[in-house]
């Protein structure tokens, strides 16, 4: 009996562990510093997590489909640079759809390589990380990109505006999260993504077009990257070529923290959002405690390892691995 309850607790921990950890974190930080749970602090954290968060939503699809996407960081730099450059050349109304078109074309190319040609996603997106970085530098000529008339453009609304007091980045993040969560959990397409990631062969045998599903996950990912680029460009109205550098791994960390398995077939949008928020609130909490920004790197490291370890420990029913 005692063992049964123990197992039951283990299962609850395995399933909802990340949520519990999140709540514990919030309470500890809140006790340590009253300012932590002030509304404007919380809204500030979510707002600054929005760019990473929007990218993580798309990568969740790719990871559930059983693949990786290491190119989102440099793709985000690309979309930011492109939309800023086109803003002054063809005006914001045309620049935004043009940027979405170009970014999603890159996503479609990756989707074609991984989905239809069945190439290893890690290496393809690693190659694209480098290639898109080159593309960005070629586009900008290596220069920083700035909007000429920063005060007179309505373009800043996406990154800096507010609707009914709520910052627009939060609205976009929340809106995308809800829509993509519904797509993943309520539509046939969403179920097929899980099927392809869970067992690609079985999915193919049951008539699911694996190639097309994988292609679509990368298209969704690039759409999210384009949204993130829009937020980034609109927030700062100017950018370096390397604005998204290294974000691919932070995004992946958030997705893994949310409990998505790199083997594919598991994960949810909701948990990814929790993963993103954990990273954001840890950073904020440590800053409020007066620690330097880089302390969060070390803390994030420990949390990622611990989260994944506990997750698989609960699944295999043993704390230590069976590796001889």
């Amino acid at each position, binding site marked *: 009996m005692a063992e049964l309850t123990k197992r039951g607790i283990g299962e609850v921990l395995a399933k909802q562990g990340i949520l519990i950890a999140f709540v514990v974190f919030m309470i500890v930080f809140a006790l340590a510093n009253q300012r932590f749970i002030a509304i404007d602090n919380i809204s500030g954290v979510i707002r600054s997590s929005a760019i990473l968060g929007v990218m993580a939503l798309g990568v969740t699809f790719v990871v559930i489909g059983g693949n990786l996407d290491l190119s989102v960081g440099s793709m985000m730099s690309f979309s930011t640079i492109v939309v800023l450059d086109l803003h002054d050349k063809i005006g914001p109304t045309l620049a935004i759809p043009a940027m979405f078109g170009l970014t999603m074309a890159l996503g479609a190319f990756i989707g074609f390589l991984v989905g239809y040609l069945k190439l290893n996603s890690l290496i393809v997106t690693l190659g694209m990380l480098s290639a898109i970085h080159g593309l960005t530098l*070629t586009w900008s000529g290596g220069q920083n990109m700035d909007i000429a008339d920063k005060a007179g453009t309505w373009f800043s609304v996406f990154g800096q505006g507010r609707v009914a007091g709520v910052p627009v980045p939060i609205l976009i993040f929340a809106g995308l999260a809800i829509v993509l969560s519904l797509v993943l959990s309520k539509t046939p397409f969403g179920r097929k993504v899980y099927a392809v990631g869970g067992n690609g062969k079985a999915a193919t045998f049951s008539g699911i077009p694996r190639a097309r599903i994988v292609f679509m996950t990368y298209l969704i990912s690039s759409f999210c990257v384009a949204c993130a680029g829009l937020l980034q460009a609109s927030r700062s109205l100017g950018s370096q070529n390397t604005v998204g550098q290294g974000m691919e791994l932070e995004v992946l960390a958030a997705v893994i923290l949310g409990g998505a398995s790199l083997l594919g077939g598991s994960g949810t949008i909701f948990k990814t959002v929790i993963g993103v928020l954990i990273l954001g609130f840890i950073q904020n909490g440590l800053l409020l405690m007066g620690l*330097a920004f880089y302390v*969060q790197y070390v803390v994030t*490291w420990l949390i*990622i390892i611990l989260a994944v370890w506990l997750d698989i420990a609960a699944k295999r029913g043993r704390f230590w*691995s069976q590796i001889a």
Partner: protein
Amino acid sequence: MSKETLFKQGAIWAFIVVELIFFSVAGSYLSVSDSAFMDFDNMLLLLKQSAPIGIIALGMTIIMINGNIDLSVGATYALAAIVLLDSMTWPFMQAMGDWAIPLAWFFALLTGTVLGAINGLIVWKTGVDAFIVTLGSMLGYRGLVFMYNGEQPTSHLNWTLVDFAEAQFLGLHTATWFLLVAALILWLVMTKTVHGRNAYAIGNNREAAVNAGIRVGPHFLWNFMLIGFLAALSAVVFYSESGSVNPNDGMLYELWAITAVVLGGTKLSGGYGSIISTLGGVIAIQLLRKGLGHIGADTETVNLVIGLILIAVLFLDRQLNRTGKEELKI
């Protein structure tokens, strides 16, 4: 060696020859400088510049033959570099004069080995995938780099050290010697020792290797210590000369190293790969960088070209091995 392996391992060297011919011919029409591309000094410099990424890529080859991956080498490199330069300013070290140099090297190499051991132990004991473990420690080690000296660069110039790093022996620079000797030793380890044979066996079929009595855990630990040591060695070679390290140094080195290893034909799924081919991959990338610069292309295009070549190599490899075993997903 079978005909097929010969063909595969020859491919990267054939690619290098093609690069040399292409850039020499194209260079004679397009080059802005008067000197030929295949100028002797130019080639020596190329080898020297290949050393930092090259030494790391050698270790990455063994890790990948194991079926693992290490994303934390860039951060390990930076931390070892900081320890190298900072330790020479400690009072007792300064009192030792130039004898502090070997000790500083030792501290740096020890740092790298310990960081590698931490990765290896976590992979062994927790059973978490190496990709996730090293993704985490990539962040964590970078955090340690920043904690050591804040956002300030760490600098210390020791002229004896600089002279040593800039020296040439039999025409080759010090860094080149380090790369070649490391490659030779690791080639011997991978082809002539039990450890090397086990590495291939584990990568090929882990379960079978366990059944054959190979202790996989300690084997992983040794290899992660090795790549940590090599990342530190790479830092020792580079920063002995440059004498100043920024906290962001070494970022994306893991990706460059993996690119070189994959270009050399090592499989991500494990069980297949060679140290010598990785050396070829490293040289091919450096040739591309230099060559594109030589024919007057923007340095930016290098990233574009390398990325596309990497994908092309993957595609060709797949086409040539259609009948082979399906690649494992990680």
